């Protein structure tokens, strides 16, 4: 009797000791945050600020004691904007680096290439790309921080409607962002009873879009023009638009929402409107705006650290990292299933991009109102709505 009790106690002790050892081993081990971003290549203006943001805040969180008492470790790969490398890197992050969560995927193409792998491996994944297909339909392990292009289309068309515009000319890039934006715009326009009377495209490497714009100008009945694209293309479109002396209201998508766009487009951008994150106008936000402080802090910290202007894209990475940290804290561990459930239940997280309210039906958690409508006035962003 005594013997068996002793034996049991011994077993208990052994189990407890093993458990303790595992726990202390775990405490020493960092939480691995994996990332694949387009730091170089054509989408580098997305990936570059994103990586800088991740590096900077992982460092900052570690200095402040880490998450759950553990340090964060950022494991990062550059996919050069190439979907198949994105897939390879996602696979490496899961298989050999064995990361706890992935925050990354600068472009929709890169994100979607990695999604099947991630779903299979069951690792929580927060994408930083825009297209609506990423979280619609909802995929169990996939979340994203930027507003979708559909919301952008809704927001732009609503603003046009307020100005009494019903017939629009659409020009879009042929890349993933532009073509998805085009599809969404066509759908939303039909739903809102508006008509797309001209519909032209340009490729990302084009150096002159005058021909396409002339085509729109010669179409009867166009009341406003919308350009859906990112990179230097939209800046060239803006310049050509001004050169052609087109006077119609001009809209761009959130794909150009950065100060560097203003620099590129120069005075041609005067009067154009776009949906954007409040990050571009932190100081014009009203005092009672819940985002004001978050936005101001991010901008100040980023600019102090990197000596370059913040961009909306870096903010997507900020929100992605903070959502990941919050989910791990809520879950109390890095168990993938628990972290995923915690992510899905995040409510009222006020980020730079907007207020996130995730749910099992919505893995983006933002609504179209998180976009502010900005207009370029005297070479600066002005908050309209």
């Amino acid at each position, binding site marked *: 009797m005594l013997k068996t009790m002793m034996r049991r106690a011994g077993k208990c002790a052994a189990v407890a000791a093993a458990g303790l050892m595992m726990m202390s081993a775990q405490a020493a081990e960092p939480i691995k945050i994996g990332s694949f971003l387009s730091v170089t290549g054509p989408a580098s203006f997305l990936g570059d600020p994103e990586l800088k943001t991740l590096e900077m805040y992982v460092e900052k969180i570690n200095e402040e004691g880490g998450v759950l008492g553990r340090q964060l470790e950022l494991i990062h790969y550059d996919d050069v904007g190439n979907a198949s490398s994105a897939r390879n890197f996602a696979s490496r992050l899961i298989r050999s680096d064995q990361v706890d969560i992935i925050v990354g995927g600068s472009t929709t193409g890169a994100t979607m290439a990695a999604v099947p792998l991630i779903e299979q491996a069951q690792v929580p994944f927060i994408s930083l790309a825009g297209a609506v297909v990423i979280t619609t339909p909802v995929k169990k392990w996939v979340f994203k921080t930027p507003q979708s292009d559909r919301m952008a289309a809704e927001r732009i068309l609503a603003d046009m409607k307020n100005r009494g515009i019903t017939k629009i000319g659409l020009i879009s890039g042929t890349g993933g962002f532009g073509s998805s934006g085009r599809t969404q715009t066509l759908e939303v326009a039909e739903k809102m009873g508006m008509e797309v009377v001209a519909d032209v495209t340009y490729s990302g490497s084009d150096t*002159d879009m*005058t*021909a396409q714009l*002339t*085509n729109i100008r010669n179409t009867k009945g166009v009341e406003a023009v919308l350009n859906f694209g990112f990179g230097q293309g939209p800046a060239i479109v803006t310049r050509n638009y001004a050169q*052609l002396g087109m006077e119609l209201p001009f809209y761009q998508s959130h794909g150009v929402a950065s100060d560097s766009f203003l*620099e*590129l487009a120069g005075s041609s951008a005067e009067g154009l409107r776009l949906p954007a994150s409040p990050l571009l106008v932190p100081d014009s936000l009203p005092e009672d705006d819940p985002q004001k402080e978050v936005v101001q802090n991010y901008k100040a910290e980023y600019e102090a650290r990197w000596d370059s202007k913040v961009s909306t894209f870096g903010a997507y990475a900020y929100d992605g990292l903070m959502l990941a940290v919050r989910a791990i804290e809520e879950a109390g561990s890095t168990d993938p299933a628990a972290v995923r459930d915690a992510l899905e239940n995040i409510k009222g997280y006020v980020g730079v991009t907007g207020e996130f309210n995730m749910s099992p039906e919505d893995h983006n958690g933002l609504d179209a109102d998180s976009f502010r409508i900005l207009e370029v006035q005297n070479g600066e962003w002005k908050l309209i709505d």
Partner: protein
Amino acid sequence: MLAEFLQYLFTGITIGATYALIALGFTLIYNASHVINFAQGEFLMIGGMATVSLTAMGVPMVLAVVLAVILAGVLGIALQRLAIAPAKQADVVTLIIITIGASIFIRGIAQVVWGKQYHVMQNFSTNEPIEVFGAVLNSQSLWVLGIGAIMVVGLVLFFTKTLIGKAILATSMNKEAARLVGIRTQMVLMLAFMVSALLGSVAGIVVAPITFTSYDIGIILGLKGFVAAAIGGLGSGVGAVVGGLALGIVEAMAAGYISSDYKDAVAFSMILLVLFFMPRGLFGAKVVERV
């Protein structure tokens, strides 16, 4: 109707002139060494980026342009001395591969030095567009066309009137024979690379206000310039210009009249057609084989 056509034409000529300037750089080195220098696009980038960063530092525009062109020239010499010359006995294909390697190397350095974002350069003269019969023309297009024309004429004179130009031609036709008559062929090659780098950088500077400039602008423009050179017939200066303009105009017309979706397809069909019926390009030299 006319305004529309003119607008497409102007657009096409502007883009085409850009392609033509780049094609000229290819032509020059091809003439000297039968090498297609895929680092040509990088000289273009160096010209634009150096000018932008120098003016940003407060250097006056004209001086910045001169310094940028000199920088590109030095790089051209370095490329020949450090990468091409050591591979003396290598065949042409190897040399072409070396230029591809060099272009990746230069681009990498530029990315570290200048960062990854796009940069703007101001128009040389006014920002106001010029109106002709209801169509508008960017004033910078005139600069591109004017400087392009000067460079073409200059090149023609260089090859037909100067000793160095003739030496380059002689070297390209028969290296051994040229050496026998006392031409220092390595020196000639170095000169060819330098002049072509100068050309490339000038092209990069005049087009930068239209296209913007960034560390990787050379990939796209270099490729289009190469295509233009191939259409015109590699090695022909006139061919480079005609090829560039034709490519630009076809692209713009296709984008305007058919659909921008088919613009690149139309351009590619044109290349296929030209090369199918005239394998040496529009102005390519006839091959004379002596036995």
